[in-house]
């Protein structure tokens, strides 16, 4: 058991390096790609393993390879002007249909009756409602805290769309947008192109993260609304290059999570501006 974990950890490290090279140098080199793909597969297997055998696999996530990143997002609602460049950047990168708004910008109304804008990616819940309901276990949570969909398993019951309290899941009702050859293999970490008849959702650009790139929405936000960070190192950065210490940034700005009362423990934190309650609606009457 121990040796197997070690092997996988090694594979995971290799994957990180290979993906870095593959993305940075060229995307045409098959050997590298295959290695990257295999490595990503290793990550996937490890993820699935941790998910099913939580107790047994736990040591693997804290092996000497260093602390595991715990991805999170901070959304500063005070700055959002509703331009939706995050949405289009996401759809361009993942080859999505126009109505597949993985990163959706909602027009909300605050207590004073004024409109404000609220970007809504997948909330990457610590206790996701979508994972336990899938009959074939196509949803899983990675050690880095990302909830992903394995589209090679998904049979399309859509019960996860029923379970998600954030409307963050989008089905492929027709053929997906055709995508050119991608720098990453079609994996839960990079489900491009999408698969007809399965569920897709925001992945926080999981495959790009080990290469040091920020998610597309974060990079493309001209207002610096979206911060992406790692809870382990307590640092987050936005598309404008501003870096914050997560713990103090959240505390000083009275950050909240969306629909806290649902007990999903999202890893997307909102910084409200003026009278915004995110329609946490349990007491709305």
């Amino acid at each position, binding site marked *: 058991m121990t040796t197997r974990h070690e092997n996988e950890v090694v594979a995971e490290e290799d994957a990180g390096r290979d993906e870095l090279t593959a993305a940075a140098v060229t995307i045409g080199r098959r050997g590298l790609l295959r290695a990257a793909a295999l490595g990503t597969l290793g990550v996937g297997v490890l993820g699935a393993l941790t998910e099913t055998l939580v107790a047994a696999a736990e040591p693997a996530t804290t092996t000497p390879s260093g602390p595991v990143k715990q991805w999170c997002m901070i959304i500063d609602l005070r700055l959002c002007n509703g331009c939706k460049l995050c949405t289009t950047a996401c759809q361009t990168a993942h080859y999505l249909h126009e109505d597949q708004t993985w990163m959706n910008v909602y027009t909300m109304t605050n207590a004073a009756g004024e409109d404000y804008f609220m970007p809504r990616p997948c909330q990457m819940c610590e206790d996701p409602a979508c994972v336990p309901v899938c009959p*074939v*276990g196509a949803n899983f949570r990675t050690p880095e805290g990302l909830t992903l969909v394995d589209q090679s398993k998904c049979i399309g019951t859509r*019960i996860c769309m029923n*379970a998600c309290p954030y409307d963050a899941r989008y089905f492929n009702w027709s053929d997906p947008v055709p995508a050119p050859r991608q720098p990453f293999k079609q994996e839960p970490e990079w489900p491009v192109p999408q698969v*007809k008849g399965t569920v897709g959702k925001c992945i926080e650009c999981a495959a790009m993260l080990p290469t040091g790139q920020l998610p597309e929405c974060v990079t493309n936000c001209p207002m610096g609304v979206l911060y992406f960070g790692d809870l382990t190192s307590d640092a987050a950065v936005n598309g404008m290059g501003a870096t914050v210490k997560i713990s103090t940034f959240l505390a000083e700005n009275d950050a909240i999570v969306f629909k806290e009362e649902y007990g999903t423990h999202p890893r997307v934190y909102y910084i409200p501006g003026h009278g915004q309650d995110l329609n946490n609606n349990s007491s709305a*009457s």
Partner: protein
Amino acid sequence: MTDVIIPNVGRDQSSPQETDLRAVAMRPVLETPRWWWPSIGVLTVIVLGGIAAWIYQVANGLGTAGYNDGAFWAIYEANLVTFIGVSYGGAVVSAILRLTHAAWRAPLTRIAEATALVTLPIGMVFIIPHLGDPSRIWELVWPPYWNLTSPILWDFFAVSTYLLATIVFFYLPLVPDAAIALERFDDEVPSTRVKVRKSLYRVLVGRFGGTPYERRRLNGAIGLIAIMIIPMAVSVHSVLSFAFASSSRAGYMETILPVYFVVAALYSGVALVVLTVAASRKLFHLEAFVTPRHFVRLGFLMIAFGAAYLYLTFTEYLIDGYSGTAGASAWVYQIVAGRYAIPFWIYFVAGGIAPLFIMMFRRFRTTSGVVVASFLVVAALWIKRLVIVIPPATEPLVNSPLAKGGVLAGNWGTYHFTWVPISITIAATAAIPLLLLVVFRFVPILSMAEMEELAEGHEESGTLEVGA
């Protein structure tokens, strides 16, 4: 024991009747009425049309069935619930009435059980168009893929178990009948038709010899299955509701939902049994055994469930509407007075009030009155299932309605009915008579042994109610 003459009580006097039980029960097996092949042909074409529509959907995606991200569940899920629901009628009429020793059930049991036998698989078939990728449906039966915390997986387990029980419950009472039929076939000209059925009956009979000991054991087994099938059916319809209820959506997240599903299944199930019994009675001339009294009794049974269902509906909407949380208020408002008001009130009038009204007055409480009421119930309960399934699936969860200034606001999703699911629904409906016609071409339409046993019991103890 050859032929039993059933007492002429409450019998329909208007038409000439055949009272030889075995002759009547075996006639659909031995004779081909002039309408039989044309009916089979028309129904088969309709079913093939549904299959063609499904193939079109597989090729072009679920979007062709009118689904979208704003309405992720709709007609197929409602059909699944409806068809699995109506299969409960067979269990009720046959099992519950057997356990309560209601002897009048006897002429109805075979038809009721056959109705359950055909509607349950039709309901299960709706899993296939419901799935986005039906080619991977095998993952549901392949243990490495099982996620045991999923309500859908348990739906699948529960319904599959129930199907097995339904088959057994259809088969066991058939054993002595197959023995009777085999005996009767000795007098027939040995045509291919007779030969095929003889070999089928030989398989069905097995080593059953009809001795008193074997009869006792068989009745014991039937009694056991009759007891088992009731909690099993309750669990099936409850677990079916969990797929909806295991959610944070207003309208799905209801503790009342399992009870609601069970009662709806009983209600629509008895109604469908009325329809299949009425059709069989007309088509196969069962007037001597299935009498107007049967319909009135089934009608009362149906309406008892109907009243319970109306009560549950009232409770659900009243409490959710009254409690005033944003989602629940908006959902109730949309159903009672908003975008889903028309189908809801159609259900209320046609499936709630009208059947009660028909059964309430003696002048409407005739055979045709009960049949009309049952038709209304089956149709209205399908509409009610749409009203259960669609509104919560179209709820906007992020910008909640009250934040937008009222229960009517918010970006509700819309389900668009298209020709694809409508063709499939019509095909599934046509499959019920189609499969029943096929079933009754092979098995006796009346439960001969059961009726004869009850008749014997009558001669001894004087408590027979068969045909009364």
